[in-house]
């Protein structure tokens, strides 16, 4: 490991605090990560020195802000290795990015009787927008099943790809299980039939390098706040050929070329999909986060986080009556489990009392919970600033839980 963990943790002031009289142990990173100083300082600088509306004024500040905003788009393009910066659309987050595609793509390409294919382990954000699109277009939602380890059944997937399939939408990494899906194969198989693929990258981008051209995905979505960036900003990558053909998602300023009461012509990419004043400050904060992650290097981050997860699995396995939910061969940064005899909510409350933040519940993936026949799980999710000592504290906490309830 090339980074110094103590030094790194100091970049995240929030981590230094106490909760319920105990040093905070933050293991809810799949919900949102903490923010490094570089990100918070970028936001401050923007609001102290640069704030102005973009693409609108001839004045100095507006020019500066416009340039900064478009530079951030270019940084994001480089980060994902997209072919063009106009293939990068800024959104409020993954949810809005998926809604944009579900709505606009479907209006143009989905008709009654057509099929949309998602997987059994999707976050509600990658289920509900497609259900709504299906309802609106009279289409049918199909679901790729998984096995009891939480791995997609690829043979079933191939069978489900039909001449009526219009789009496939699958998560790169499952937020509830940690499974890394074989998206290269998923994309290649769909492309053999000329079907485009949307990848929900919310849980992948924080943990691995993503190259959208190498993947050859048609759409890729992620949220800034799970990647050490601010809340309220996210990214939709879309291949030019699709974005060009799709109608706008929302109407308003920025997205138009000319407005007459007799009719309006739309702006070109990427502005066609960015109606209204964009979230300039948070986009710049996101850019700072991308720089921060690039500086740490993805291979280093992955190696370190994988060590943490392995150590966590080894330690948690020693606990009585523990059942892991999601045991795929390829996993990253998430350990989901329940005690067979203790409700996840009870576990979460006691851990909270000990200053340990984990997520309990269904993780916005109710169909996944139903599949495993559990009311929810306890989810421990790692970020680059977590440590082995924190895992030891967690295991001690879980032993307390067991003495209280077991």
């Amino acid at each position, binding site marked *: 490991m090339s980074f110094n963990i103590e030094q790194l943790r100091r970049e995240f002031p929030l981590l230094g605090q106490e909760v*319920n009289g105990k040093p905070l142990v933050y293991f809810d990173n799949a919900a949102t990560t903490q923010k490094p100083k570089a990100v918070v300082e970028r936001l401050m600088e923007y609001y102290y020195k640069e704030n102005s509306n973009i693409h609108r004024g001839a004045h100095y500040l507006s020019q500066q802000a416009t340039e900064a905003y478009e530079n951030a788009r270019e940084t994001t393009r480089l980060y994902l290795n997209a072919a063009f910066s106009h293939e990068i659309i800024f959104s409020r987050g993954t949810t809005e990015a998926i809604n944009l595609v579900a709505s606009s793509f479907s209006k143009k390409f989905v008709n009654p009787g057509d099929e949309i294919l998602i997987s059994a382990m999707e976050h509600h954000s990658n289920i509900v927008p497609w259900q709504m699109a299906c309802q609106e277009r009279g289409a049918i939602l199909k679901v790729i099943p998984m096995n009891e380890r939480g791995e997609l059944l690829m043979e079933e997937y191939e069978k489900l790809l039909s001449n009526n399939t219009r789009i496939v939408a699958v998560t790169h990494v499952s937020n509830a299980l940690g499974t890394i899906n074989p998206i290269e194969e998923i994309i290649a198989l769909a492309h053999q039939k000329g079907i485009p693929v949307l990848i929900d990258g919310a849980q992948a981008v924080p943990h691995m390098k993503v190259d959208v051209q190498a993947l050859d995905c048609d759409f890729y979505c992620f949220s800034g706040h799970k990647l050490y960036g601010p809340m309220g900003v996210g990214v939709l990558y879309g291949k030019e050929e699709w974005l060009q053909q799709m109608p706008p998602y929302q109407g308003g300023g920025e997205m138009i070329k000319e407005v007459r009461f007799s009719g309006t012509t739309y702006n070109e990419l990427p502005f066609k999909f960015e109606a209204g004043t964009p979230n300039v400050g948070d986009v710049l904060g996101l850019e700072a986060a991308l720089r921060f992650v690039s500086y740490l290097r993805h291979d280093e981050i992955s190696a370190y986080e994988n060590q943490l997860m392995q150590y966590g699995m080894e330690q948690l396995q020693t606990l009585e009556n523990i059942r892991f939910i999601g045991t795929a061969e390829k996993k990253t940064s998430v350990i989901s489990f329940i005690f067979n005899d*203790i*409700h*996840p*909510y*009870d576990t*979460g*409350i*006691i851990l909270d*009392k000990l200053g340990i933040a984990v997520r*309990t*519940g*269904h993780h916005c993936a109710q169909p996944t919970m139903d599949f495993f026949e559990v*009311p*929810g799980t306890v989810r421990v999710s790692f970020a680059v600033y977590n440590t082995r000592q924190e895992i030891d504290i967690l295991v001690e906490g879980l032993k*307390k839980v067991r003495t*209280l*309830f077991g």
Partner: protein
Amino acid sequence: MNIKEKEQEIISEFEMFDDWMDKYNYIIETGKSVPVIDSQYKQDQFLIKGCQSQVWLQASMEDGRVVFKADSDALITRGIVGLLIRVLSNQPPQDIVDADLAFIDAIGLKEHLSPTRSNGLVNMIKQMKLYALAFKAKQQGT
């Protein structure tokens, strides 16, 4: 004992605990000893859904007093359900409607009644009061 006296009784019991572990242990034990609700009432019509834990609540009127039975799938929630039943069950409907349940705050469990906990307890209290109101209306109607 009326509602206020029962609340006071619980507050005195909690004063004996000097750390949170003892307190939670007590709640958990209370949870284990809540009389089990008949499985016939463990149905959707009696279910108060929380995101994190669920509560079943059933009410009946006996000799001018409302009798509550309840259950939860999580033990801590069940323990707090037990305390609420101890205070509110077997009381006249008007007293239940008027109860401010200040004891929850006094024993340091207010956080569990926050809607953000999403454990079903907030809606359970609402539902208990609604039952009491309904029984009161029925009483006056006859």
